[in-house]
């Protein structure tokens, strides 16, 4: 047992040693009594471990489980993950808040247009008109619609495929 470590012997038994190591061990075996014994001992343990049987649960094990199943509904996978949904809602809320803050800070042009009684409404109208023509609006709109479509599909497919359990 001078040349081979215990780990090398286990790797040899598991078949995970290198080809070179395997050849070295095989060549050393006929003339090395200690190596033969060490390997045989580990092989015996390996074979005994392979023959170990699983523990048996009680006879009613499967029945107990089946009796608990009728009230359970499948948690079907979601098309729109909850994380993505939360992230999107957070982004939309932040964007809306940013827009409100931005509009409130726009320069007041109401005196020039003669609508002094409703300055904020005037700002909103001006800002919205300019936003409609912007490509950003189109992108945000598409994203929002996609999200709503996926959420709708998610709900629809869940309802369609959730199993109607028969008690």
């Amino acid at each position, binding site marked *: 047992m001078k040349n081979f470590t215990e780990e090398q012997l286990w790797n040899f038994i598991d078949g*995970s040693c290198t080809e070179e190591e395997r050849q070295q061990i095989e060549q050393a075996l006929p003339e090395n009594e200690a190596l033969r014994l060490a390997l*045989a001992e580990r092989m015996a343990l390996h074979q005994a471990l392979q*023959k*170990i*049987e699983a*523990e048996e649960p009680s006879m009613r*094990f499967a029945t*107990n489980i089946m009796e*608990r199943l009728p009230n359970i509904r499948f948690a079907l996978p979601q098309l729109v993950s909850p994380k993505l949904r939360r992230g999107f809602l957070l982004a939309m809320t932040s964007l809306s808040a940013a827009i409100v803050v931005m509009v409130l800070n726009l320069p007041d042009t109401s005196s020039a247009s003669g609508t002094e009684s409703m300055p904020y409404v005037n700002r909103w109208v001006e800002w919205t008109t300019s936003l409609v023509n912007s490509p950003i609006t189109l992108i945000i709109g598409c994203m929002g619609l996609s999200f709503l479509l996926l959420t709708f599909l998610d709900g629809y497919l869940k309802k369609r495929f959730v199993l109607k359990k028969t008690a």
Partner: protein
Amino acid sequence: MSTNTSDGQLIDAVIRGDHAAYRSLVERYQKYVFTITYNVLKNREEAEEAAQDVFIKVYRTLASFERKSKFSTWLYTIAYRTALDYQKKKKYNTRSIDSEESYLQIEDTKSKNPDQSMHQEDLKEKLKAAIRELKPGDASVITLFYLHEKSVQEVAQIMDLTVSNVKTKLHRLREALRSQLEQQLKTEIQDLL
């Protein structure tokens, strides 16, 4: 349901609403799942309760099983983690492989009965007893590798360990078991020769 039906076919049947298919899956894996929970919890009643919870959890989430790994690997991962959760709640007293004296003192039948050769069944029973005395994680490494015939990579995935960590544990554990059962193993070798 035929025993030749694959796990994938059974899962599809369950999702379509075939209740009996799930029973087939439970019966196919109940022993293995129970062994995993038993190795961690060291108590039959607790292990059975945990194993039942495993199958309930699996049923609830079966439709989300992505089939990127084998069903058994996914199932055993849930079983191992559920057992660990139970163990955390109960704070079981277990022993570690790291200390030699932690092992169950296995009766040396040869020294008691020199003329009686050690039967393979005895060795198996002693091995099972020795494995039961191991720290939960250590016992799981051995049973997943041998009983469940999982590769080192799969064991690492199930137990959330690195491959090298599993290899090292496996090596240490087998050496510890070998030294513990040395006498019985020598008898076994003599019987074979």
